[in-house]
């Protein structure tokens, strides 16, 4: 085992290169989560639409995404799409991650929407609001509030999933760690260092999600 002073020394030396990698990891995560929420919302709405064909589309999408490993999805998207047109690797990774997140997020949002009391929907309709208006103004705001804890969870999962972008040569945290580690014949130290960076990012995200939950709970408790 390397000594703590050795670990600390390398940690300081590599600050710059890991910081850059950390930014890329964050970018991948944030973009894929934001896109994932949009995709997830679309498929959640398809699922509750009461129109059989739309529900089926949603079911197929969720099944395909949840039924195959993320790394397979990343490779298919990256190598498959680049046969058709040139997709820059950041967008290939982000898209794959977003589509992946989207499936899980669609189930999170569907559950949250359905957990809002039906009386809320009836109240909106009885005031002359259309289904869409009621959904937009009354149901979705309440559903999002309820979805925050599982969405926060998905955010953290997505952060760690971003490490798979290493396999399409993106210089995010995991790739940098394994490359430097093998170049210096010191894999362990660099893995431990990158673990610290991930822990920091997760701590940051947890903090942000908790603050958001608190802010939005003003009206409820």
């Amino acid at each position, binding site marked *: 085992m390397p000594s703590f002073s050795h670990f600390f020394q390398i940690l300081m030396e590599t600050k710059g290169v890991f910081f850059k990698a950390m930014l890329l990891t964050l970018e991948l995560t944030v973009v894929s989560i934001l896109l994932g929420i949009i995709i997830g919302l679309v498929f959640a709405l398809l699922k509750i639409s009461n129109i059989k064909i739309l529900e089926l589309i949603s079911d197929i999408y969720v099944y395909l995404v949840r039924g195959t490993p993320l790394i397979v999805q990343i490779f298919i998207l990256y190598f498959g799409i680049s046969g058709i047109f040139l997709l820059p690797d950041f967008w290939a990774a982000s898209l794959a991650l977003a589509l992946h997140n989207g499936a899980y997020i669609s189930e999170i949002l569907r559950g949250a929407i359905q957990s809002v009391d039906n009386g809320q929907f009836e109240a909106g309709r*009885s*005031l002359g609001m259309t289904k869409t*208006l009621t959904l937009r103004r009354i149901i979705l705001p309440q559903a999002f509030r309820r979805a925050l804890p599982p969405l926060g969870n998905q955010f953290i999962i997505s952060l760690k999933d971003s490490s798979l972008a290493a396999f399409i040569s993106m210089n995010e945290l995991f790739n940098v760690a394994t490359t430097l580690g093998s170049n210096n014949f010191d894999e362990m130290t660099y893995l431990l260092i990158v673990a610290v960076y991930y822990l920091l990012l997760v701590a940051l995200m947890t903090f942000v999600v908790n603050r958001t939950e608190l802010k939005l709970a003003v009206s*409820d408790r």
Partner: protein
Amino acid sequence: MIKISQLNKSFGDLHVLKNIDMTVYESDVVCLIGSSGSGKSTLLRCLNFLERKDNGNIIIEGNEVNPRTDDLNKIREKVGMVFQNFNLFPHKTVLENIIEAPVMVKGVDKEKAIIKAKQLLKKVGLEDKSDVYPSKLSGGQKQRVAIARALAMEPDIMLFDEPTSALDPELVGEVLTTMKDLAEEGMTMVVVTHEMGFAKEVADWIVYMHDGRIIERGTPEQFFNHPKEERTREFLTATMLK
């Protein structure tokens, strides 16, 4: 103003409304009473099309409504509803609850809607609660806000689905008082209720339902003092009103 003829409604195998005929005239206060399962709430909910009838006619203001082709949203703008469980929007303040529909559905200017909302809050005795969230209100207060919210759309008719059934006994009075004031102003009201005192005092017509049918209809005087049907008499005895 509303005429129902030969209305039928089933939920699966359960035939809940059987050939209902009923007419509500302008400024009438009609109280629907009966035991649970009699179909009174379902009938009420058919009046604003929250439930879809299976067959029969619903004629509003002389025009028969076809649920498939007519714009039900437009009809619901004119038919207000107050629910047993209030159904206030928890993520909005009291004021925001009341102005939501006028602003978003009718396109009323927000400032005007706020003025109207404050007038309505004053009317139901809650003008100091406009910036409070529903979770901070008592049941009776919530229901009065719900009434104000429904009134904000200036409906022609107000439907009440057991408005006081979920309230502590002490809070029932304030809501019934608000409803009585509304009746005295000439609002057309259809109220599903178990509050017989209210029905006796405020209703123009009592409609007693049992097992999906209207058994008897009459003025409070006729209904409580000279019931014609056997079933009605049984009901009044069982509820110790005779």
